[in-house]
């Protein structure tokens, strides 16, 4: 069963590797993964869709929350959330089918982002099921090339973000009798 995980992470080298490591160590295959920075450029928001045994979903979230670079990991699978994905498609369109292709695009709300004698480049945003349907239909018109963005999701409930405050650094040198004498 696919699980949708939303993470708020520090934008640091290795953070992605640590997070995917939690999944790859268990042999889970990632269905999609998106990362981009948030309003605070020091942080990134990540959405991962992954096939996890239902009884291990909580454990995976806990393991991710344990990572030092992860500020928050939440399971959106059964939570109120909006999930969207974007698709870019190149479709070969000979003269006789151009009108039909544009009609289909219009039905799905896809935008034409490039047009040439050979065909069109189309852009479509929606939930993954809608994208699948669109792909199926466009296949009927000939060769297509598809790049999908992977899912991005946002929780519809405000989430309290609990962060650890700075810890003053006690200087053990001052308490160390050996060095105090020196």
């Amino acid at each position: 069963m696919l699980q949708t995980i939303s993470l708020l992470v520090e934008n640091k080298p290795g953070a992605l590797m640590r997070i995917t490591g939690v999944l790859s160590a268990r042999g889970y295959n990632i269905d999609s993964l998106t990362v981009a920075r948030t309003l605070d450029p020091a942080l990134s928001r990540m959405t991962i869709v992954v096939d996890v045994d239902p009884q291990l979903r909580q454990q995976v979230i806990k393991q991710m929350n344990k990572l030092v670079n992860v500020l928050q990991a939440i399971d959106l699978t059964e939570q109120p959330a909006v999930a969207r994905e974007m698709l870019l498609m190149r479709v070969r369109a000979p003269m006789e089918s151009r009108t039909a292709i544009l009609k289909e695009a219009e039905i799905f709300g896809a935008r034409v982002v490039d047009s040439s004698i050979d065909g069109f480049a189309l852009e479509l945003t929606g939930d993954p099921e809608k994208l699948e349907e669109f792909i199926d239909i466009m296949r009927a018109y000939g060769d297509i090339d598809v790049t999908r963005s992977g899912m991005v999701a946002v929780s519809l409930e405000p989430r309290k973000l609990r962060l650890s405050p700075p810890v003053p650094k006690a200087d053990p040198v001052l308490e160390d009798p050996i060095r105090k004498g020196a």
Partner: protein
Amino acid sequence: MPNLMSGSQMLLECLMREGVECVFGYPGGVMLPLYDEMYEHPLRHVLVRHEENAAFAASGYAMATGKVGVCMATSGPGATNLVTGLVNALMDSIPIVAITGQVPTKLIGSDAFQEADTFGISRACTKHNYLIKSIADLPRIVHEAFYLASTGRRGPVLIDVPKDVLQSQAHYSPVSAIHLPGYKVYTAGHAGQIRRAAQMIWDAERPFVYAGGGIIASGAHEELKRLVELVDTPAVCTLMGLGGLPSSHRNFISMPGMHGSYAANMGMTKSDLLIALGVRFDDRVTGRLAAFAPHAKVIHVDIDPSEISKNRTADLPIVGDAKRVLQRLIKALEDLAPEAAGRKAEARRAWWQQIRAWQTEHPLAPEISSTEIKPQHVMVEIDRLSGGEAIVCADVGQHQMWAAQFIRFNRPRLWINSGGLGSMGFGLPAAIGAQFACPDKLVFAVIGDGGFQMSIPELATIASHGLPVKIVVVNNGYLGMVRQWQHLFYNNRLCAVTLDCFPRAESLAAAYGFPGRTVDSPADLRPALEQAVSEPGPFLLDIKVSPEENVYPMVPAGGAIHEMILRPPQPVSVPK
């Protein structure tokens, strides 16, 4: 006016500020700037003979003291050799910091000489790891590493330092605070949960304390003793928790699990309330999970939220530091005691009678013979010399289980072994670390002939420092635990388990310049051990034990813990 320092100087300054007294390491090309700085630095560097043993020695040091152990290695092979020691520290929650050299930043990724992706390799082997790209980050990272290693659930942290970072110069100013917003340390435990736990404990008819390494890590041994006495409940300590409750305590029911005592495993199976403290329901303890403690509600106290309900669902989870939580739990129990303490008196009396009956029925009794040295006999004699007070560093295998069964530990931090990872070759280097940490204590390295032969190079380290480690090789000429499994589960088809050509102990020790002795008769066992202990320096004892002895009781892998093999094959099943 801040000081101008090199990266090497800054690193050493940070180590001193962390109170580091001694590091275990092995130099190499990219580490030369650091080692050059150590030439006239007060920090003590112990040169081990293999990097893996630097990590093990640092772990032994950390386990004996509770302080952060430090190891160092060079780039490439030096760093990769640390891997087993890092994973071992991760599995057993040992606070160590590993510092590895790296090729200069400009060469990273170019397949330079002795380059390895240490940052990538150590990701899965550590609690956290760092690659320092600029000297400006160095002090912050070093202090963060020590903070991470020594707080929360302890563990290994690795810092990879490129050579040019060690060589570059910058003004140094001390770090005033650690800021890790995503690193949550849970300490006190939830007050409401603690109150509910106290109620459950007084309401239980067959309570049973299952205490583990978390007791040792948080220094909660006094609190554990107080809890066990206040509620008068039977208690077991896991392999990692031995010494958490004194082995001589009347409520102590030995170790549970695959080679645990009959009373420990039966107690867990029949209990109606498991009070699990700093444990992780390891498969070697629980056996077949579905059959583990089937009648018990579980109170699970652990500092790591991801341990709660990982293997066994907790009826009452408390996330926190064992010491803090126990202090508050004891208070809550005392508050309720006036009206609650006697409530289940009748059931509690019957519970204790049952526990004592199991203990009498199948005690953990050592095999002792007058014609051959039984390995259990060796442990009994070590126990006699230790009196529950010596440090015992074990390797991995049969001898480790016998030591855990028959050597008593009346304090925490005396029993040092590789539990979760089960890494052979751990015992001798760990003993080196422990002896450096506790120079005045009696330290035994109790090792099988297999693990010993993985650690022979460290005899040089021991000799070079005149460390008075008493090395006791429990020599059965086999990889004993593997032989035991082949014997029991593979029709005794012994494959690749015979260890012949063991070097003569007298000659081997003499080659390193200290005494050694071979013992092959039971009559010589005690005098030989006494001789070893009376020698001021190191001593190597090769004790030829009966080769085909098996560890019992035994729960076969995947079996239920109440279905133990108590003696050579005759499974005993107790109806529920």
